[in-house]
């Protein structure tokens, strides 16, 4: 029945060794989520909307230079600093481990964006506009945010909801195509997992640098990375020491205790740049 829900905890693994900085995820995100087109002005005023962005770092001195890319999106923190500061509870943590922004509740205080250590929250300083020819490109599943409210990565929650309805309605296992018994077709069905529900950035990534999965799913493809990251958090909480030279798993700004649900894998450098 509908009331029985399966616990999910969605998470993403970003393999920096695979990321080539091609920006396909950025484009996919802009198209999926009705994000206005960023102009030069927006960037100069530091008011550009990029729910996912590729940060680029240079390493070394010319001619011995290497570029490093880090895709940064909302980390969907367990202890999200943006949540307690919202006076109207427009942002909260839902039972699927997502940090959710409810647009029609937001009054635009911008406290959350000030408190976010990852700067992944974006404020609509203007009414969004698109060229006339892009009007039919807008995604009907996502609200167009008006001026004066905060927006951010939602892990494409609209795709999750649509996938849930598809599983319920058609009653087919998304991976094997087998028919699910009617009694088992419930909202948040266990089969709502990777393959059936992917955020647009993950779907667009040509090198599979971004991978998305349910952390509670024992058979998930990146389960071991989530496990290791959760282990690290527990070790740190109990005052233990994590040997970072033997693992690739880390989370952004782990030391401030936000417990992000996005896990990063370090880039492997077979030929490191010589330190001057």
């Amino acid at each position, binding site marked *: *029945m*509908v*009331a029985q*829900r399966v616990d999910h905890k969605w998470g993403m693994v970003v393999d920096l060794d695979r990321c080539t900085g091609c920006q396909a995820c950025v484009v996919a995100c802009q198209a999926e989520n009705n994000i206005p087109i960023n102009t030069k002005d927006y960037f100069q005023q530091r008011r550009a909307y990029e729910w996912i962005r590729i940060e680029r770092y240079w390493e070394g001195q010319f001619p011995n230079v290497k570029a490093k890319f880090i895709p940064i999106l909302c980390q969907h923190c367990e202890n999200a600093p943006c949540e307690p500061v919202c006076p109207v509870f427009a942002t*909260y943590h*839902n*039972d*699927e481990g*997502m940090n*959710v922004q*409810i*647009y*029609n*509740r937001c009054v635009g205080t911008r406290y959350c964006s000030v408190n976010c250590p990852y700067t992944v929250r974006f404020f609509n300083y203007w009414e969004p506009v698109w060229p006339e020819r892009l009007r039919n490109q807008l995604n009907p*599943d*996502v*609200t*167009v945010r008006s001026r004066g409210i905060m927006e951010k990565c*939602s892990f494409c*929650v*609209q795709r999750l*909801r649509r996938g849930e*309805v598809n599983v*319920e*309605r058609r009653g087919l296992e998304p991976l094997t195509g087998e028919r699910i018994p*009617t*009694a088992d077709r419930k*909202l*948040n069905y266990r089969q709502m997992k990777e393959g059936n529900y992917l955020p647009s950035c993950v779907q667009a990534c040509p090198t599979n640098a971004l991978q998305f999965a349910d952390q509670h799913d024992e058979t998930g493809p990146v389960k071991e990375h989530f496990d290791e990251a959760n282990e690290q958090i527990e070790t740190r909480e109990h005052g233990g020491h994590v040997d970072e030279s033997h693992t690739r798993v880390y989370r952004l700004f782990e030391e401030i205790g936000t417990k992000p649900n996005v896990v990063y894998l370090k880039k492997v450098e077979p030929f490191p740049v010589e330190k001057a």
Partner: protein
Amino acid sequence: MMPSAKMLPLMVAGGVVTVVVGFVLVVLIISTFSNPPFGLGNAPAQPVAFPHSVHVAENNIQCEFCHRNVTKGEAATVPAVEQCLFCHQNIDGTSDTASAIAQTEIEKVRTAFETDQPINWERVHRLPDHVRFIHEAHIRYFTDETIPVKYGINGEEIVESPDVAQTCTICHGDVGNKVEVQPKTGQSLKMGTCLDCHRENSVPTDCTVCHK
């Protein structure tokens, strides 16, 4: 300081005026933001005077015969002109039982079909842009026989599984017996209405279930 005897009636009158004006203002503000405005439930004028009562109550056409998508997807959809012609290429409203205006109205539909023009129906039930409502999921829930007890939109118990047409009346009222479609009397399409029903039926009330 006690007011003098001269001032007393003046103050009483002022107080009465303040209370009356305030009351009127509060009523005006509340009713402006109600849905439909002022709670009148006036149906907008339609380009073709389509009587639901003739089609549903008299001729027993099922809701989902015209609103084809209602058991398949999000929007119930208004039928295309071609689908009206499915019956109305034979039915022209000249029979004895047909009302006086039937012939002219059916002629409008046929003209629209011949000139390839859509009929611009006016929307009666309008949800805000940031709300996701899936007709199919709600009909599937209410017609599901494995769920023993369901609760309607005002908390009334539904023990037997209704068919699709009865499910529609839970939110839309008795459209089948009305000439004009109007929002159900005293029923606003507000978030509280949705939440009450979701809580009664203990289905998810997470914000992202409806808000997008």
